[in-house]
């Protein structure tokens, strides 16, 4: 039980505490902060494990990029103030499954641990080794594919994030993009009543309602009523 | 050799259906076209009856073409042939369904006002299916036609039926289908274990008794539902009440006979040992069915439901007769199938006549019709007395032989079945009295018009054979005798193999037992 073990244990405990915080805290922002804390602890553990490059990546990408994105969204939607019971109706079943995972995980990990070769600590991870692997031989194709995955994700985000997200069918798309004789509206019209319709049956306010003309077609009264 | 007759018997209605479907004619043109085909069918059926050689027990005019082969895992594929053949057992039934074809058309003309083309197509397909069932000598072909004849009636009841037609037709279809699915399993078992689906071959192969029992019970379920035997009969009254008159005639006239014919040809024919073993049980259920059916009929207020329940009782007599498994019972069963077809067909025709005029079927709605429409009352009286088995009409020889067969099998069974004759008289005559006799209770009945030409024609087509069978039963029984004797030899073979089986098991069970080989079947 040298110093490294002690540090590792404390970092482990900290990660667990943070994870608990993520899961149980009612407020989304606090949950996010806990997650960031757990990432930091984890990167510490990676260091101890002998993966310095990865620890850095963990901090940079995970804590830096992804969590920032989370916080950004949380702030954008202002959902943190939602005071509703955190846990869903079926929490009992969820907990049961989690427990089952713990039990099975424990059994598997014991099996995994017992099989592990004696750690000779001969080689430690170096950036050169990793980059050799990623760019020269072995994992080049997977790396490029993850690039494409990221690109796809970006495109998806752009499409999904569009402002006038309408529930659309091919017919709607075609009809909309057919030649439209109406002159372009040069200036923004004054904000009319929240769900008023202009002469051409288009919505005037910013918030997306279901496509009025589409609604007209199948009388989605629940939408219009709200 | 004239093997063109049987394919034509099935072909004519099928071609007729096609012709009617494509013909550009209007309502009357379609009806006359269809009637032409049906008349041809009836003529051919009568021609077959006359040309049939009454002394030859096995199948005649057989027509066989290889159809396809069922691939089996091991060994070569099981050949399935489009094999039609007629013999003593199916002769009378083929003649009956041929005869009923024009009757269905003539009665349909009266009450089918909409979508006539479809109705005609479906009824012609129906007739083809029926003939196919009685003529097929190959198990798979039998199953094919069995299912084919189900679909048209589904539509006939479903589209042109009464208010609760959808419930009735779905119930009828699913009920019968459930039975035939179980039959299919047994059929496949036979195909794969014995390498053939030809009925003739399966009858000669001696299938082990245990396998026989299994297959017999599977087939028996399908046929019991179709007959219908008592626990499975609830679909019949609903189907009849909701069916249009033409549908009721074909349902009562021929469809029910597929069950009893199946029992005879496939049940007793192919699995004699099992038939001997289950015979007493099925006969017992049949006898209970007679009494239960009669009580049911007595309690009905709807004329058509009463006749439907009465056919449950009559079919019970047929089953009792057949499963007495002796010479008289089998002859009676076969003849009674025809008699029931004729008399119940005529009764439903007459109910249809009333329904077309008054659009109501409650017995209470009628009364004293004999004073207003005497001709109708006379035909109704004749039909009623034929249905309760009055000597001189067709009911008597059939019922007499069934009861004699039942009595020979066991006096108790005979007595129980004979009670049916008394109960039959009770509910049929009370129906006749409430409909035809007594004062005229309803104003509308005053203005009823008597049978018109068309209705007279269809009634006479049924009346002639009814009186002829009554006066000269031997003409209709003699041709079936060789086939029945062949079946009796099958039953004896079954009894022997059963005795062998019991004997063997007895020997094994108690090595020293004195009495071995006691016959398991009837005395």
């Amino acid at each position, binding site marked *: 039980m040298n110093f490294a073990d002690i540090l590792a244990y404390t970092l482990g405990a900290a990660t667990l505490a943070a994870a608990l915080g993520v899961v149980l805290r009612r407020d989304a922002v606090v949950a996010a902060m806990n997650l960031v804390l757990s990432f930091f602890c984890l990167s510490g553990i990676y260091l101890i494990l002998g993966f310095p490059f990865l620890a850095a990546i963990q901090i940079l990408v995970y804590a830096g990029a992804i969590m920032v994105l989370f916080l950004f969204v949380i702030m954008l939607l202002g959902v943190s103030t939602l005071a509703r019971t955190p846990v869903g109706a079926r929490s009992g079943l969820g907990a049961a499954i989690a427990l089952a995972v713990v039990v099975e995980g424990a059994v598997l990990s014991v099996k995994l641990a017992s099989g592990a070769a004696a750690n000779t600590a001969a080689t430690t991870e170096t950036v050169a080794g990793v980059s050799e692997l990623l760019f020269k031989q072995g994992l080049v194709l997977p790396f490029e594919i993850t690039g494409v995955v990221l690109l796809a994700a970006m495109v998806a985000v752009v499409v999904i994030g569009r402002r006038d997200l309408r529930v659309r069918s091919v017919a709607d798309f075609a009809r909309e993009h057919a030649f439209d004789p109406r002159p372009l509206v040069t200036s923004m019209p004054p904000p009319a009543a929240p769900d008023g319709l202009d002469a051409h049956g288009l919505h005037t306010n910013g918030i997306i309602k279901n496509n009025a003309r589409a609604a007209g077609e199948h009388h989605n009264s629940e939408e219009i009523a709200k | 050799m004239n093997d063109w007759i049987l394919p034509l018997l099935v072909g004519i209605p099928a071609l007729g259906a096609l012709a009617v479907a494509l013909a550009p004619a209007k309502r009357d043109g379609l009806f006359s076209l269809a009637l032409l085909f049906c008349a041809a069918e009836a003529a051919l059926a009568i021609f077959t009856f006359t040309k049939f050689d009454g002394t030859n027990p096995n199948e005649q005019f057989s027509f066989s073409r290889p159809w396809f082969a069922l691939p089996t895992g091991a060994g070569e594929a099981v050949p399935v042939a489009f094999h039609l053949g007629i013999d003593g057992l199916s002769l009378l039934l083929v003649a009956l369904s041929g005869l009923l074809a024009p009757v269905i058309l003539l009665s349909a003309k009266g009450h089918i006002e909409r979508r006539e083309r479809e109705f005609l197509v479906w009824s012609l397909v129906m007739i083809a299916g029926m003939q196919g069932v009685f003529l097929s000598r190959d198990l798979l072909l039998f199953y094919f036609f069995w299912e084919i004849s189900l679909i048209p009636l589904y539509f006939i009841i479903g589209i042109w039926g009464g208010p609760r037609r959808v419930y009735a037709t779905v119930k009828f279809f699913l009920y019968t289908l459930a039975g035939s699915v179980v039959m299919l399993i047994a059929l496949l078992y036979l195909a794969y274990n014995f390498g053939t689906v030809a009925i003739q071959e399966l009858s000669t192969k001696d299938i082990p008794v245990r396998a026989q029992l299994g297959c017999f019970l599977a087939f028996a379920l399908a046929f019991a539902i179709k007959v219908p035997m008592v626990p499975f009969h609830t679909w019949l009254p609903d189907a009849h009440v909701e069916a249009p008159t033409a549908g009721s005639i074909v349902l009562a006239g021929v469809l029910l006979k597929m069950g009893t014919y199946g029992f005879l040809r496939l049940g007793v024919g192919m699995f004699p040992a099992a038939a001997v073993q289950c015979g007493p049980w099925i006969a017992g259920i049949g006898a209970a069915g007679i009494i239960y059916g009669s009580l049911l009929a*007595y309690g009905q207020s709807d004329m058509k439901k009463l006749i439907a329940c009465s056919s449950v009782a009559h079919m019970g007599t047929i089953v009792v007769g057949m499963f007495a498994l002796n010479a008289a019972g089998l002859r009676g069963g076969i003849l009674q199938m025809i008699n029931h077809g004729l008399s119940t067909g005529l009764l439903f025709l007459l109910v249809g006549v009333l329904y077309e005029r008054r659009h109501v079927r409650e017995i209470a709605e009628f009364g004293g019709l004999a004073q207003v429409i005497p001709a109708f009352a006379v035909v109704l009286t004749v039909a009623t007395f034929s249905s309760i088995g009055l000597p001189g009409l067709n009911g008597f020889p059939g019922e007499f032989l069934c*009861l004699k067969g039942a*009595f020979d099998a066991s006096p108790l069974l005979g007595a129980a079945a004979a009670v049916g004759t008394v109960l039959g008289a009770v509910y049929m005559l009370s129906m006749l009295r409430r409909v035809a006799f007594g004062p005229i209770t309803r104003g509308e009945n005053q203005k009823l018009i008597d049978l018109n030409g068309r209705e007279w024609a269809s009634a006479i087509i049924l009346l002639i054979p009814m009186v002829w069978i009554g006066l000269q039963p031997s003409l209709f029984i003699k041709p079936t005798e060789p086939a029945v004797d062949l079946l009796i030899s099958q039953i004896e073979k079954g009894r022997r193999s059963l005795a062998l089986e019991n004997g063997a098991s007895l020997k094994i069970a108690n090595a020293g037992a004195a009495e071995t080989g006691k016959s398991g079947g009837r005395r």
Partner: protein
Amino acid sequence: MSLLPLIPLFPLVGAAACAILHARTLAARRRDAGAAQNERVVGAIATLAIVASFAVSVAGFFIIQHEPERRVAWIVSNWIPTGGQTIDFGFVLDPLSSVMCLVVSGVGALIHMYATGYMRGDKGYARFFTYLNLFVAAMLILVLADSLPILFIGWEGVGLCSYLLIGFWHENMKYAEAGQKAFVVNRIGDFGFLLAMFGAATWCVDAAGKGSFQFAAINESVLAGHVEPWQVTVIGLLLFVGACGKSAQLPLYVWLPDAMAGPTPVSALIHAATMVTAGVYLVIRMHPIFDASVLASSVVACVGAATALFAATMGLVARDIKKVLAYSTISQLGFLFLGAGCGAYDASFYHLVTHAFFKALLFLGAGAVILAMHHEQDLFKMGGLKRALPLEYRTMFVGAAALAGIPLMSGFFSKDEILGGVLAGRPVFGNEQINLVLYVVGAATALMTAFYTFRLIYLAFEGESRSNEHPHANPASMTIPLAALALLTIAAAALGLPSVFGEFKPLEHWLNPVLELGGESGNAAKAHGLSHSAQWLLLGASAAIAMIGYSLARATYGGGLAKSRARAEAMPGIYKTLVDRWYVDELYHAVFTKTLRLAGVVAGLFDAYVVDGAVNGVAASAKRAAAAARGLADGKLQSYSLWFGAGAVALVAAVLLLI
């Protein structure tokens, strides 16, 4: 002898002709209402058909005298092939059936002539004669049949015709119900007959072990002892059940009084002379069976005696003239069965013949009275018709005298023969005393018969008229048959004088070949006949009984209703029960009709809810299962992932546990 089938054929052809004529009149009536009924033509055809058949029967009667065993047969072989015993459509003319043919066609012809007058003006005239001819044809088939199934054809045929004729005026629901009741009760009897037929065919085997439906074969096999005793008894009892149904004996007699709903000629022909005697004919035809089984014959005797007594009591108080005669018929039939049961077959056959004549006469007379009184049937509303209808009065008096058993009348001799047969006959149930008791019952019945017969005569003809109708004379076509029947009744006495007057018993000798089948046991009565003095004593007793009955009736009803009403008040209880026919109808209605109707309803409910319920239950449960399954897909993402997670965990657990 191809003449034989002609006997039933003539009436069949007659029936067909009348049917066609009826159809034409209907068509004519529909075209222009009121087309003239060709009554004369129809009446002539129908009556001629029966007369022709009578002529052939007479010819047959003389022909068979020269035949070796006085027996002629005609057969169409293999009419119904049953695989075992074949059923041939065969007729046989032997002494028994020839006399029956004569009676049926003779009395039938007279009744047809009478009916042409009685039914004049009825719009169903041709239809009536169609049914009447059909009936005579069926009765002749029944009588001529040489095997049980062919007899059964006639048996059911007459049942059908009695159904049609009782319910002839079907506009009146009461008459239609009476017709249906008659047919159903007959059918109950036929149930027993059917089983007896099958039993006989399978059990009565000949030496070679082959059963048969033929009378001759069955009788032979019973006499030869190939049949176990219990089987003979069962066949006998079942046959008697059939006979009870047809001849209206105790348990199954209820239909006959209601059968009076039919026109009077029908009552005369069917419910007096012919059909109802079919049961006795059957017992006589199959007498070896009843000789062989003491139990069966004793049951026949006792039921006969009981019915005789029971029916006579109801006859005492009946008001409707036809009902009185109906009860008397049931009672006389009881007498016939009593005689047959005790082995006195020739005596009961003799009484059967004489009864046919005088009962038909009485019915026709009653019909004439009813017609004269414009369809008034209540005795209490008649009276003093002696002056208005002299011929009817005289002929009915002759009939009544015969029925009552006034000495020197045919009824006296035949009834006396039966009573003698009972006394000297085979011991019932094995001991003599019962015969004595049966004799006493018979005597009492004879007394009551005499009383109610003359009560009828006095109420109808004597005293002063109690109705404002003035009776009109009846046409000749009705009075001639009355006279003829009266003569026949008187002449019938000559058929079988008691042996004490010298051995002049033509009927008995004539029947010997049929009744002597069993040799000694065949005709027990004659074997150790009564001594001369006993016979004289018997004759005296019967004469005394008749006279007492006559004088009693004369005393009470001579001066109109006064005395009888006083007598009725004296014992109200008994009078009431007798008038209400011992409440048997109500009992039957409650026990049978109600339970059957209840059973029908219960079966209907059971069927609709239990059997159908099970079927619909299967369908409903399938639907419910589907609905439950649909609950899982509630659109919430997390519930899907829950099931997903649960599945994954289970899989891992399975893998871990298994490896």
